[in-house]
């Protein structure tokens, strides 16, 4: 468009408005982007805060006495926030904390026993005696924009007072037959999982430990575990070679079947009885293990080929029998007594007289629903559906074709039963009993969900109809292709059943199953079967599931954990009682077999901690917890084994004055070599009790901070009898710590920037009262305790127990300006502090 040179016009209103509109769109767009910038800043801030919180928690833990950083034997699992990942945490010693700093942060803490093994850090069972190394995991979880976020810190804490192990076991682990070295075999002391080593490619191991008597355990995948009782003196090196016997293996095979629904087992459209009546019947078989109610619950529908009738018609039925038993039959018919195949049967349900001829054109002729080709008019094809009346869902369906008239079954499973002229008079369609075909003696249960593969026919009728009074054994069902097979032998992996043959069957072969008697679990979806008596007697043996025992009929909503519990000599434990295995909250407890030591636990899916001998139910043996095991529904987790050694327990009482309890004091129990075997913290009653310890002499020692002392400082206890609790001593601790807490406010508002709190027994002078310069030169004077208030305007000062003299508490609130600062100060006098307790309400306000 040419521009008119004479044009002098300014912008029009329209142009101006469009310009404004464009500017507005731009501005709105920019405003929108602010939101994202804001979110990004927020995300970065949240993460920084989380990182600070985690580091702070870690610092706090690492500053504790090593023996006060306790390992929980029963961690809790948070699987909700980051499913399927689980955040494991301690609920007892270091419970989760909620910290509000803009958003709510949840701090989870977990302390685990760790050990360096051949260059890697391994996590050990919580009952492992002290290894001198602990792994602290702090996880911070928070929500942002509806999503959970987490930040995890891990740090190792080493015991500064670890006793140097001065005895060494070393040697080779070999295959007993070939004498070839075994790579990756684990050798450890049963008494202390921390004393361990894993063989490398050269098959050698070397374990440093304290001198004493031990049971060495050598284990390798595919080999029998060997236990050996050994004894070693200080500064000695002893060679112990293990020649492990390879586990002989066999195979478990089977043909798994699913049988979870009723099936249509026989269809007859027309057979004339002796009185000339044109009978028809439909027989149902129940391959499941439960009784089904049929009366009013299960119905039948029929449809002729689509060109004859486009709609599936519901058959009106008068029910006579209530239900169909397991492996039983149910007979629908148009007469009360069916005479066919040389027998007479009482029908369990008959067609009602109310069936309309508009739906079933042959109903006028002796109540016929299912027409046959002999009736003319192009009849012969059709389909029957067994359905659940409550919701109309299909239970089973069978369709048959009439190919000479190109009339296909109106509905079917996979493929309609191929017929040339269709169903004819005196003809019967019968469901196979197995892949071999029809049988008169076994239940017609074969169902590969393909009508053309599952049915056969006879003309005249040769398989007599059955009613609800008859049962037959089922040897097949629906092939359970995809079923997963796992075994408790701890050696074999799992196998999956696949389809073979025509008609198809499902078959599996689980190889490398160790010799012995095992539990085998076959699961497919929620159905499965557990067989506890699968035996592989010798190398190369094959165990085949019998056809009658390979139906996946149990409903599985659980997984299985198996293993064995043995004593240090490798024998099962029976006295004074069998060992209880507890999966915590994941399932019910069970007992280990008193003669084989084997156990099988059924547990819900998710992380599980198994404890053997919880609460020392068998008082002669120690209690040991496994590491966390993750189990899925229908899965066997095998090889969760425990070796329990005999032991007794040590108890004691810690007091601040000989009478009153002093809670929260850590107590270390050291063996004769000075290695820590257990640590406990006194409860609110001042008492402690150790885990079971193997018999022997122990030193009990309260783990105290500086300037704290205990009387007596240590006590020696000798455990001689397994199962007995020995009282060590009453320890009186002097100089133990208590707390003073309070708040700092300015004009009624909490001070967020920080207030210095100084606690001392001396009186400070000056304006403001001035605390002295502190350095190592002042170390011998009366102590000062100092702390800064936190962001919430609260403080908590840890001070030594003192009721006389009492404490003075000074608070200083500085406000800097330019190069100087003004200080507001305040003081509180006559504050007494009792060990293990908190004196609250020492508040300061300006």
């Amino acid at each position: 468009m040419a521009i008119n040179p004479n044009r002098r016009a300014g912008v029009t209103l329209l142009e101006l408005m469009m310009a404004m509109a464009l500017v507005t769109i731009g501005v709105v767009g920019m405003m929108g982007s602010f939101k994202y910038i804001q979110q990004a800043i927020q995300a970065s801030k949240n993460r920084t805060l989380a990182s600070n919180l985690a580091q702070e928690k870690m610092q706090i833990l690492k500053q504790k006495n090593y023996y006060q950083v306790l390992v929980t034997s029963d961690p809790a699992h948070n699987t909700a926030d980051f499913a399927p990942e689980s955040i494991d945490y301690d609920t007892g010693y270091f419970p989760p904390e909620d910290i509000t700093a803009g958003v709510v942060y949840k701090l989870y803490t977990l302390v685990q026993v760790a050990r360096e093994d051949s260059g890697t850090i391994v996590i050990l069972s919580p009952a492992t005696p002290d290894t001198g190394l602990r792994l602290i995991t702090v996880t911070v979880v928070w929500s942002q924009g509806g999503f959970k976020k987490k930040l995890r810190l891990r740090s190792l804490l080493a015991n500064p007072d670890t006793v140097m192990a001065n005895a060494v076991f070393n040697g080779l682990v070999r295959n007993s037959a070939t004498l070839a070295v075994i790579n990756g075999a684990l050798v450890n002391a049963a008494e202390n999982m921390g004393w361990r080593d894993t063989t490398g490619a050269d098959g050698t191991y070397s374990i440093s430990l304290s001198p004493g008597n031990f049971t060495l355990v050598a284990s390798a995948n595919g080999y029998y575990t060997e236990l050996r009782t050994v004894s070693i003196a200080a500064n000695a090196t002893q060679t112990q070679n293990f020649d492990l016997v390879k586990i002989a293996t066999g195979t478990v095979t089977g043909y798994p079947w699913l049988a979870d629904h009723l099936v249509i087992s026989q269809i007859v459209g027309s057979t004339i009885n002796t009185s000339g009546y044109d009978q028809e019947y439909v027989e149902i078989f129940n391959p499941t293990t439960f009784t089904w109610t049929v009366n009013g619950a299960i119905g039948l529908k029929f449809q002729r080929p689509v060109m004859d009738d486009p709609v599936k018609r519901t058959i009106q039925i008068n029910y006579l029998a209530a239900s169909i038993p397991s492996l039983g039959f149910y007979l629908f018919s148009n007469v009360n007594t069916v005479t066919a195949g040389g027998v007479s049967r009482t029908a369990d349900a008959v067609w009602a007289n109310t069936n309309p001829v508009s739906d079933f054109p042959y109903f006028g002729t002796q109540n016929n629903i299912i027409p046959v080709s002999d009736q003319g008019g192009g009849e012969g094809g059709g389909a029957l559906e067994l359905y659940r009346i409550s919701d109309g869902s299909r239970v089973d369906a069978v369709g048959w074709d009439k190919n000479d008239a190109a009339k296909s079954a109106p509905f079917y499973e996979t493929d309609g039963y191929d017929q040339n002229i269709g169903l004819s008079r005196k003809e019967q369609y019968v469901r196979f009993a197995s892949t071999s075909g029809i049988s008169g003696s076994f239940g017609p249960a074969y169902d590969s969900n393909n009508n053309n593969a599952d049915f056969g026919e006879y003309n005249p009728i040769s398989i007599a109809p059955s009613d609800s009074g008859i049962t037959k054994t089922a040897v097949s069902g629906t092939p359970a292709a995809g079923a997963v097979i796992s075994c408790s032998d701890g050696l074999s992996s799992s196998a999956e059943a696949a389809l073979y043959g025509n008609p198809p069957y499902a078959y599996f072969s689980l190889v490398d199953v160790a010799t012995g008697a095992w539990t085998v679990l076959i699961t497919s979806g929620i159905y499965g079967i557990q067989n506890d008596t699968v035996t592989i007697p010798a190398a190369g043996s094959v165990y085949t599931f019998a056809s009658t025992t390979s139906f996946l009929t149990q409903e599985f909503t659980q997984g299985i954990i198996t293993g064995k519990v043995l004593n240090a000599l490798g024998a099962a434990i029976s006295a004074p009682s069998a060992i209880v295995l507890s999966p915590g909250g994941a399932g019910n407890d069970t007992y280990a077999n008193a003669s084989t030591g084997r156990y099988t636990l059924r547990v819900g899916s998710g992380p599980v901690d198994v404890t053997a001998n919880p609460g020392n139910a068998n008082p002669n043996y120690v209690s040991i917890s496994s590491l966390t095991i993750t189990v899925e529904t229908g899965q066997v987790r095998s090889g969760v084994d425990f070796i329990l050694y005999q032991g007794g327990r040590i108890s004691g009482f810690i007091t601040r004055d000989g009478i009153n309890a002093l809670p929260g004091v850590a107590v270390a129990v050291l063996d004769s070599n000075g290695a820590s075997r257990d640590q406990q913290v006194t409860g609110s009653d001042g008492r402690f009790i150790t885990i079971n310890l193997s018999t022997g002499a122990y030193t009990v020692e309260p783990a105290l901070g500086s300037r704290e002392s205990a009387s007596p400082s240590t006590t020696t206890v000798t455990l001689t009898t397994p199962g007995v609790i020995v009282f060590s001593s009453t320890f009186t601790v002097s100089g133990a710590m208590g707390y003073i807490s309070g708040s700092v406010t300015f004009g009624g508002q909490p001070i967020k920037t920080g207030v210095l709190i100084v606690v001392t027994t001396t009186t400070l002078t000056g304006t403001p009262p001035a605390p002295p310069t502190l350095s190592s030169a002042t170390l011998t004077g009366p102590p000062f305790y100092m702390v800064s208030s936190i962001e919430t305007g609260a403080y908590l000062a840890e001070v030594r127990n003192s009721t006389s003299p009492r404490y003075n508490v000074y608070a200083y609130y500085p406000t800097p300006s330019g190069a100087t600062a003004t200080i507001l100060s305040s003081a509180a006098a006559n504050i007494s502090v009792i060990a293990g307790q908190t004196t609250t309400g020492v508040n300061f306000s300006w």
Partner: protein
Amino acid sequence: MVAFSRRGVTLTEMMVVVAIMSVVFVIAAPMFLQVNRTFIMNRTRVEMQQEARAVMYVITRTLRQARASTVTINRAAVDQPFYSRISFTKQQGETLIFQQEGVNLYQVIGTGKRALSKNLRYLAFTFTRSDEMGIISVSFTLEKNIFEGRKKALHMASEKVRIMN
């Protein structure tokens, strides 16, 4: 069309435009101001966080190398807060001082004096107890003025340093 396009804007049209724009600006101005304020506040917070981290890193890294027997906590002058100064000698023999002078946090090495932060609100070097000087707790708060006299403080939770030597 041609006749129409020759005309300029009338006074009425111009007034309408001015009126609409006034309304738009009146609504938009506070929004812009608010957005700008939030932006500055967030930027300042991030700055404070970074500064606090850097300061904490410098202090704790050097403090870890201190010899416990050489640590002294006091204050730089009588017009400074208590325990806002720490002096110590590192394992390598070098003497270091961190001290507060009003809103400034200085690192002093020999005669050299370097400002680590000019936004100090609170600083305290404390022993949890004076009879055990192996653990020193470093607490400080940084604060920066934002326009209109609004202040935004960031408290860096105290970090405890264990002196190994």
